[in-house]
């Protein structure tokens, strides 16, 4: 039998280093908490401007939304850092992302139709505010869950 190229203790320490670096990447704040709040504010402002039906406000709201969204994405890109490997998220992570997305749609539609039925003015804006609140709460929770999922994956896998 061929002898091992390195002692087992060294191999174990190397594996720990591999795991430590993987966890370092996973722990990087790729999506900061302020992202969710900023996105929420933009969304509420946009829907509110549309619902106002005041032409200049609709136009201003649309421009502010488009420019704000572009600036938000640009700010994220400027932060630099890593693009975490897609396969680390896996099926559980994918389901969690889908779950949050569907949950946000359900909250938005549910609240908007609910307040509309009650005769509350600007139901779309109220629905958007509910979505924004859900994003501020759910976004960071999703990120934390994804980190746990990614840290539990085996290291060094090809897929």
């Amino acid at each position, binding site marked *: 039998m061929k002898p*091992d*190229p*390195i002692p*087992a*203790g060294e*191999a*174990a*320490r*190397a*594996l*720990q*280093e*591999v*795991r*430590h*670096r*993987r966890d*370092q*990447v*996973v722990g*990087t704040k790729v999506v900061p908490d302020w992202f969710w709040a900023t996105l929420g504010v933009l969304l509420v402002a946009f829907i509110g401007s549309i619902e106002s039906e005041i032409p200049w406000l609709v136009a201003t709201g649309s421009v502010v939304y488009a420019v704000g969204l572009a600036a938000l994405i*640009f700010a994220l*890109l*400027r932060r*630099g*850092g*890593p*693009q*975490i*490997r*897609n396969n*680390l998220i896996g099926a559980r992570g994918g389901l969690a992302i889908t779950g949050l997305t569907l949950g946000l749609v359900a909250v938005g539609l549910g609240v908007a139709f609910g307040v509309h039925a009650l005769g509350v003015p600007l139901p779309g804006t109220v629905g958007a505010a509910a979505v924004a609140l859900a994003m501020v709460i759910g976004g960071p929770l999703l990120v934390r869950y994804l980190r746990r999922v990614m840290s539990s994956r085996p*290291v*060094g*896998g*090809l897929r």
Partner: protein
Amino acid sequence: MTAPRFDELIHAPTRLSIVSLLGATEWAEFRYVRDSVGLSDSALSKQLTTLEEAGYVQIRKAFVGKRAQTTVRLTPAGRAAFAGHVAALQEIVARAGVDTRLVP
């Protein structure tokens, strides 16, 4: 299942840190790798050149706005070599019955 293959090039401590970091990413910015591993620009460039010459990493330069951005990624060959190396390490550890959680 990846075939175990001990890789001397990857196993060097600094390169193991760099490749392990890149192994968890699709790509990473040069400065992120530099700051995470705690290297100077020149030391990281030297290690990346070695890995690039082996066909293990790809280095790209682009602009985000007016700022130059250098990104690094593992190539498919680099990813396969890293996976083989990790499998080899796991095999050595398993044969010896060492619990990696207990290693200081």
